[in-house]
């Protein structure tokens, strides 16, 4: 059952809807949002997925990371230091 999530990519002008699978990794979730927003935002490698003010381990699955339907996740540039 796909999980609908609101995704915000840093640099974008709008939130997008991403339908994630429970077994998708956090890394692939970030990748999919980048792809979906590519028309407006240039690709970057130094990104991390943030959910409820927590940086998620990219190797976790969506289920393991505890992402809930119709919640927002952010894909943001890694902070220096």
């Amino acid at each position, binding site marked *: 059952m796909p999980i609908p999530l609101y995704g915000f990519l840093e640099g974008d002008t709008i939130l997008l809807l991403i339908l994630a699978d429970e077994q998708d990794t956090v890394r692939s979730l970030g990748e999919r949002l980048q792809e979906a927003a590519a028309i407006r935002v240039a690709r970057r490698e130094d990104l991390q997925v943030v959910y409820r003010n927590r940086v998620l381990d990219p190797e976790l699955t969506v289920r393991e990371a505890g992402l809930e339907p*119709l919640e927002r996740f952010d894909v943001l540039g890694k902070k220096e230091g």
Partner: protein
Amino acid sequence: MLKRDEWLPLARKLDWDYSYVSEKDVFPEVASGRPWLPHKEWKNWDEPYRTSYTEYVVNQHAKDASVYAVRDAVGRLSDFQRLASPWLNALKLHAAALPLAEFAATVGNLRAGRFGRDSAWRTMATFGALDELRHTQIPLMVMHELVRWDPQFDWTHKFYHSDDWVAIAARHFFDELLTAADAIELAVGTNFVFETGFTNLQFVGLSALADQVGDHMFEKMVTSIQTDEARHAQIGQAVLENVIKHDRKYAQYLLDKWFWRSWLLFAIVTGFSMDYFTPLEKRSCSFKEFMEEWIVDQYLRSLQELGMEKPWYWDTFLESLELYHHMVYISAYTYRSTVWFNFVVPSPEERAWLRDRYPKHWDQIDAAWDRVIDRWRASKPGDEASVHGQAMVTFCDLCQLVLCGGTPSRNTATTLDYGGRKYIFCSEPCLWIFGREPERYSGHKELVKRVLSAEAPAALPELLTRYFRLTPETWGKDAYGGDYPWLQRPAAGEIG
């Protein structure tokens, strides 16, 4: 024979004491509004125009004759065909948003014409209803001529009958403001905030631009409408003063709610038109500058005169003045097939002009335009699909508009759990409005939730044609098919 000033009170002040029913039964709070006050608290209600029916008919007849004369002189198809292509899209946007919203205003004014708490108020609201019928009919008449030339003008009538995302948002706004509002909320929200506070954007700003670009029919249409609005807008302050006297907190809430909701609507309708659809050489000021001069200063002055506070979210509003309509415009550009008008990519000169007018955040918007232009550069002219978003965009559960609040660094969308359901809001003020009246808003589904519950199709082509009622002929495109003289494409062989 009575003099005018002696006769008018006889014709306008007609209230009497009820003996067979209670006053509350005649004017129930659900339709008349709150605070509910006995008539003695309203009996001194007055406004400066004090029009009689005879005067109303004579004046309106003259105004209509003038509109018809202008239409005969400069409102024919060939006159519109001479206008700049981007401006025509400002016209299509207004043509769709305006007339049936005005018809909803007829309904609202008729309710106030029955349930307003003083007969002079009811008289003015009845004239207001007649005004709004006129404002429905004039644009329908003017735009009808254009349908055979450009089917996107068919949306002048079709728009509110569709489930296009902009129509969902506009209906949500106007249904609450006009069709469903009680007489007091209508007076404060429509007559005071919307008509006194915001419509200068259309009647002063946009009509001046229309004159500049040579669209004299549009200019005449809105200035003629403005003369009606100036009169019936007077209902607002006269009602508001009494609400402030008896329930200041509620008055402040109505002011703040409708200022925010009106702002979002005008940011799109007028912001797009002033900063993107008006040819650069015809622009005298930016949307933000116009807002600052004609709306912000005047509205704050009005609030001060009434002894009211500026909205609690004022800093958020000033920040959104810098950016909101730019965020929505580029987002909508990349989903232009979802609306009934066309878009343009701002040229290098226009981007420089926008940077100059919006120095605080323009760099972030400009970076997104670079991406769009790169896409066009790598695509053939007219290849709309290559320069178009595919993922589903998202909408606010209050305003129903796209989640474009904040900045490209920090989007302000916020989620909420309420009654076992998830909601999302574009901004703090939208969340705050929902929180004040959740029972009013919580049953409505924004577009994403309609798709997820299979009420609306998920696939874009079906969504556009079956749900939004667009066709390949009418859905929005780049006005130039991406073929801009300033956009240097690589030689044909280099395109992958």
